[in-house]
Structure formats: C-alpha cells, structure tokens
C-alpha cells in the first residue's frame, strides 16, 4: 500500500490522467496534416498516392476480382482493343469510354486498337481476325506475339475460373476455336455470330499475358503460372509491380520500354486504409492524391474544400435486393412487385447517397446501350403495394429476413429505411448483418429470402448484362429466377449482330423482367472519385476501376 508521497511521485492524479486522455483523444480526431504520417509518401509531382480500402489480394483476374486487384490490372496489363474516349456530359474534365452504338463506325462501335492494330469481322459475324501490333515488349522484355493471346485464352479453358464465363459468353467451346494465323495474326472462330466478340477484347477480365515468361516460371509443375501470376505480373501494360505487401501497400513503377505514351505518374503507391473516415482525413490533410470509395456524406463534406475535388459519374453499378424465387413468399410475383412498390427510392437516394445515385429503373445499367427505363412501374405507392399483397393472399403480411453486408456501410441504413417502409404494409423484416465473407457465401448459396447485392456487368452490352443475372443457367443468377422465354430472347439477342433485332429482343427481355420483378430494384450508385484538385485525367471505365496511366497534374 503506497503512502501519499509515493502516490504523488509515481503516478498522475486522476485529473491529470483525464486531461491527458482528452488531449490525446482530441489530437486523434484532427485530420492528418502534411508532414505527419511517416507511413505515407507525400506525393512528389510524378508519384501518385492512393488511399484504397484494400491492397490487391491476388493479381490473377482468374481468381480475384477484388477492388485492389482490378485497379492493378489496368496498369499492369494491356488489352487487344479499347473504347474511344469522350467527355462525360455530367462531369467536367472527366472522360469516359464511348460505349454507345455508332451506326457510322466499323462494327457500330467506337473502338481503337491496342495490342491488336487492326481487325476484321467476317460478314456472318462468326469469326474475327486480328492483326497484332509488332514491337511490343512485356515487363520482362519478351516480345508480344500471337502465341501470348492464344496462351491467355487457353488458360481460361484450363483453369476454369472466371475465365470460364468469358469463354461461355462468347460461345467458345474449345481452345481450338482460337487459331494462331501467324506471329502477328490470330483469329477467333465461333459456331454462331456473337455481338460480344469485339467488346470482350476490351473487357478488364481479359488481359493478355506474357506467355514466354509464364512458361519459364511455371514449368511443368505449374504450366499456367498460377502461383506466379497471383503475386506478380507478366504483361504488356504501362506499369510493372515494384512491391506488394498485402495489407499495407502496393507500389507500381512506370515502364520505360512501354510501347505507347509513357505515363506521367512514374510511381504509384496504393496504400491500404480500411476505414473510409481515415481515407477522408488523409485526403483532406493532403497526405494522399486520391481517396477511394468514400461515403457519400464524406464526399459532400469535401465539396467545400478548395484543395480537393470530387468527381461523380453515372456508372454501371447497380444495387438491388435479390428476392429468392425459391423461397416463399417470394415465389409469388405479386409479393415481389409489392416489395418493389414499397421501396422508398427517393428517400434512399437523398438520405443515404446524398444524391450520388439514381433510382434503378431497368434490370441493367442505365448507361448501357438499349437500356430501357420505360418499363419501370414501381413508383412508391404503399396502397398499391398492400393491394398486391392482398392479391397474393398475403394481405395479413408476413415475417422474413433481410440480409446485408457488414462490410458495406450503405447497406445497413438502406435496410433500415426499407424495414420501416415494409412494416407499413405488414411485412416485418428481421435485419441480419453478415460479415463480408459470410455474406458472399450466402449470396452464392442462394440461401436467403432477401439479400442485397451490389455489382456491375463489365461489358456494356444488354445481352451480356441480362445473360449474367437472368439466364436460368447463369452462376450469377442469385435470385433463382427462371423464365424460359427470357432465356430464349437473351440467347437470340446474343446470336445476331443486327442492332435493330437486338433492340427488339432486349426490349422484350426488359419488359418481362420488370413485370416479373426478380429483384427489388433500388439504385444506380455513381462512381465517385475524391482527389486533389490539381490532379487531372480521371477516366471512367465500365469495369469501375482506375487506370493510373490516365493521371497527371495541372
């Protein structure tokens, strides 16, 4: 037991402790200021520092499509084709891919050659021949040839990862359908015409690998270089990987031997900062150039600051409720329609998204060709919703569960608004918060009656989008929706290059889908970028990722 003298000498008083704790707590609340934070590079003119929710967990698109990974792909790899760029009509200074239908352009698309210098699609639409660009080197110094493209697509067949979808959606059944015609010539040969043949060459999911390097590092034990490509890159893109410390940072360096215009940003540091509030503070304090995926209210708070700019563009993102057609009462179309009529879209967009979203009015991204909002009839109307429930024999209401992702801060408040609204028509929701890993497991298992989903189909095509989510055999048809008429229409639309026929087919598809309401349609969240005001060059891609080579400083 200490005496008074010892207590005074050895320890702070309670008042001193509380004062110190308050000061420490107050200091912790202050935004980071330039010069603080030794762990963050201060961004010299040609160094781009990004605060990201996560570093890449894997660099192989075959197995990893997480946020950090897809941002890396566009820097490390090159693609056969790309869309021309146009100015975004709603966001000054921002460019976006021109994915519109252009009747006056070859193949009705605004495309430009990347690794493919020229291309030719046969009149029947069943084959495409590509003349490849010569003199392109990989980050390992190997020259690009047709063998690299062949190897890339053979890999998809053999590994059966996400590449299996890429081959299936093109109607490719065998690697033999991709033929090497020469060192710099290659052809894709399909059984049926497919309007996605050229579009898929732009898809972020189809980077071209340096086959020579992959064969050298993999050998016979790992012929498809799975282990190597998870942790490093072998590609023809403008950057190479300098460092990857998962959970901390990834560093990319611009290549001096890149075949196209060298990036202005010579070095890119992607730093993992899991909390959006921390990313917000870092950008506010000038410690980073870009803070990714901030919350809408944080974006609003940044608008008043002169050193920061916020870009918000219409995107391919959609957020919706999967209404499981195999779990009662969502096997009843009138119940699904009733839920849709009770979703408070305007409230959600105003309260949760602060206007950084638009109501979802179609079963595909509204920025995609042939998206049609005219079939949307689910304006908020509780009386009509109640009447639909009566018609379905559920007039007394029912109890069910709404599951949401604990890792997405917008989903819980949206769930609360939907819960309050549905309660008014007698549907009592129990909200179930699931950790991210468990959440996605439940989505893919199709185990829940109602569960959120946020996604975007990367290829800007109505056939691609509807096939992905509504074809009864699609792995991503998480709502268990089955309509053979819709299956036929989707397939027919994917079997012709005639845009007039496609438009007619996909109008019918969208009309049927809006009538069947397999989803609770919620919103189209915008793609937002919070950046330093002196940073320019942001380009929006339908794969919702950044490409570091776009950026420069004013």
């Amino acid at each position, binding site marked *: 037991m200490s005496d008074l003298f010892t207590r005074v000498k050895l320890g702070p008083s309670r008042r001193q402790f509380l004062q110190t704790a308050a000061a420490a707590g107050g200091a912790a*609340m202050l*935004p980071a200021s330039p010069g603080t934070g030794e762990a963050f590079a201060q961004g010299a003119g040609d160094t781009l520092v990004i605060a990201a929710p996560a570093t890449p967990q894997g660099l192989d698109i075959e197995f990893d499509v997480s946020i950090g990974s897809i941002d890396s792909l566009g820097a490390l790899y090159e693609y056969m084709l790309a869309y021309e760029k146009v100015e975004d009509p709603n966001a000054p200074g921002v460019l976006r891919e021109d994915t519109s239908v252009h009747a006056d352009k070859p193949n009705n698309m605004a495309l430009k050659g990347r690794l493919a210098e020229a291309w030719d699609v046969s009149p029947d639409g069943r084959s495409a021949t590509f003349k490849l660009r010569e003199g392109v080197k990989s980050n390992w110094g190997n020259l690009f040839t047709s063998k690299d493209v062949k190897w890339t697509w053979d890999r998809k067949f053999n590994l059966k990862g996400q590449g299996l979808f890429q081959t299936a959606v093109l109607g490719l059944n065998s690697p033999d359908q991709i033929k090497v015609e020469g060192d710099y010539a290659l052809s894709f040969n399909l059984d049926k015409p497919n309007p996605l043949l050229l579009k898929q060459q732009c898809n972020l999911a189809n980077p071209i690998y340096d086959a020579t390097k992959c064969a050298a590092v993999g050998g016979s034990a790992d012929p498809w270089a799975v282990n190597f490509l998870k942790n490093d890159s072998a590609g023809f893109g403008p950057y190479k990987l300098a460092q990857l410390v998962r959970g901390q940072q990834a560093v990319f360096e611009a290549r001096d031997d890149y075949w196209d215009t060298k990036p202005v940003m010579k070095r890119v540091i992607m730093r993992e900062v899991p*909390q*959006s*509030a921390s990313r*917000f*503070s870092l950008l506010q304090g000038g410690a980073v150039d870009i803070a990714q995926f901030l*919350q809408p*209210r*944080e974006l*609003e*708070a940044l608008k008043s600051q002169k050193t920061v700019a916020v870009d918000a563009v219409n995107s391919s993102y959609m957020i919706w409720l999967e209404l499981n057609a195999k779990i009662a009462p969502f096997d009843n179309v009138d119940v699904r329609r009733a839920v849709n009529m009770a979703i*408070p879209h305007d*409230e*959600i967009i*105003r*309260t*949760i998204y602060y206007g950084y979203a638009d109501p979802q009015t179609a079963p595909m991204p509204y920025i995609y060709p042939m998206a049609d909002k005219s079939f949307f009839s689910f304006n908020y109307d509780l009386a009509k919703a109640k009447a639909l429930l009566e018609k379905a024999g559920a007039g007394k209401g029912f109890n069910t569960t709404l599951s949401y992702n*604990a890792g997405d*801060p917008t989903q*819980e*408040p949206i*769930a*609360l*608004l939907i*819960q*309050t609204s549905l309660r008014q028509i007698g549907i009592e929701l*129990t*909200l*179930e*918060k699931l*950790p991210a890993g468990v959440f996605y497991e439940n989505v893919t298992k199709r185990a829940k009656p109602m569960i959120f989903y946020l996604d975007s189909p990367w290829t800007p095509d109505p056939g691609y989008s509807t096939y992905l989510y509504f074809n009864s055999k699609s792995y991503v048809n998480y709502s268990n929706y089955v309509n053979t008429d819709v299956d036929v229409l989707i397939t027919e639309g994917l079997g012709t290059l005639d845009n007039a026929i496609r438009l007619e087919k996909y109008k019918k598809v969208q009309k049927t889908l809006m009538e069947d309401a397999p989803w609770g349609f919620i919103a189209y969240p915008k793609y937002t970028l919070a950046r330093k005001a002196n940073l320019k060059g942001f380009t929006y891609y339908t794969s919702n990722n950044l490409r570091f080579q776009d950026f420069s400083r004013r």
Partner: protein
Amino acid sequence: MLAIVSLCARIAVIRPRFALGYLIVAIVAVLAILAPLIAPYSPTEADSTNFLQSPGGSHLFGTDNVGMDIFSRAIYAPRIDLTIAILGTVLSALLGGSIGALVGYYSSGRGIRVWVSFAVMRAADVLQAFPVFVFAIALVASLGQSIQTVVLAIAFVNAPIYLRLMRSQVLSLRSMRYVEASTVNGLSDFQTITRHVIPNAMAPVLAQLSINVGWGILLTAALSFIGAGVRAPTPEWGSMIAMGFQNVVTGQWWPSMFPGAMLAITVFGFSLVGTSIEVLADPAKRRQLLNEARQRPAGRAAAASKRQSLEQV
C-alpha cells in the same frame, strides 16, 4: 428505517463517490424501466425527412443517418444492455461460483475428485488464456447473432473469474470449525457447501458482480460495435456508436457521442457501486466506515464548539 437511511446518508457524505455510483445506477435503472413513457419517438422507426439533425429543438440529442431519434434510442438502450449484462453476469456467477465451490471444497485429499478439480482449474486456465473479445466473437459467430448468444458469451468469458474467486474463498473457509462441525453433525458435503460454505464466501462475489455488470455492458457494446451483438435497429449503445462514429469526421458528432457518453457513465457508475460493495462486504472496512459515519456528527459538534470557544477568546 430512519436510522438506516440516516446512516446511508452519512456514508454518502463520507464517501461521495459511492453515492454517485448508486445515483448513476439508479438513473439508468429508472430509464430502463420508464423508457417507453419518457421517449418522445419510437427507437426503431426511421424517418428520412429528419436525418442527421443536430441536437436541439424536437430532437434533444439529434438524429442519426436514417432519422432515428438518438435521445429515444439512448434511453431505450439500457433495457437491452442491462438485461444482457445482468443476465450474463448472474449466469456466470452461478456457473463459475458453483463449480468453484466444488473445486475448492474437493481440491485437497485423495481420489478422483482431486484430479477432477485439477482438470477443471486447468480448463479454466485455458479459457482465460483466450483474449476475451476474440472468444466472445467466436461464440457469437458460431451460435448466431442474438441477445441470447451475447448473454451466453458474457457468461462464458466471466465464469472463470467467479470460479477462481469462489475457489479461493472456499479453500480458506473449508478448514473453519463450523464446517467441520457441520460434517460431524452428519450433513452431507452438498448440504455443508450450500448452507455454510457458499453463504460465507459470497462477499467478494457480490462485489465482483457489480463490476462485471459494468464490463458486461462494455462487452455487449463492443460486440455490437463490430456487428456481432444485437441486430439493427435494436437500440443499444455499442451499435449506435458503430452506426454513428463514421459521421464524426464529417462533423456530425452526436450520433456516437451521446451513446458513448452514456455508456461510459454507466460503466463508471457500476464500477463505483462495485467498489462500495467491496468495502461494505469486508467486515473490517465496514466497521471502520460505520464508525467514521457515526463519529462524524459528533466530530462536527466538537469542531463547532471549538470554533465558538476560540471566537470568545
């Protein structure tokens, strides 16, 4: 009765922090009981027309990001937090205390009982070696998210504390003459333990109970903060802090500060109550305190008399 109240009042004057602790706990208990009568709004209904309103006007503590009234939710929260914490703590005391009593009673001598006691203590070591929070999360993750699961989590993580506490008390009481007399008089071990040993070993357990209720509230809040506690939109301080803390950086401090302050004050109150029970349960400290309380009025009179005589001089 009046004498007891008077004595308590005098103890409160000598030890104001005891009074503060009891006052805090009393207020929280009253809020828990009367919340439906006091709360101006429903604690679970969202109102998007009033989201993130600052404190004042018709919303004393402001509203959160879906328009729920923070004051209403903050005063409803003790119903959940106290229920979970008290149930969990009492369960842990019953479970841990009863096992501890048995282990303490049979931990010497020979036979299988000694080995069982040894094994139980080692199992308690293993249980206590786990970080409390990690163990609670694992339990909630395996059993699912519900109030019952959180109660069980609190019960399991705190049971070893009562096990050790009761065991140490029983070890010292076991050799008392009255225990021997009980055995000689023909009472079974069970009767001896329940009638004579446990009642005399309860003092530190009671003190620990109050402190653990405070910890239980904190653990409940922490589990809810990370999404492993009660389901939304159940009003609970931890989940309110979780929903609101991200707003702090953009200047909306109230959704997390008010429930955070109430949580801190409540845990502090229970901690003070626990300290007071610890003092009152110890015979020597209790005697000293009561003597001080009784002497205090006499002391004041003597001091007043001394002042008067000094003035006259």
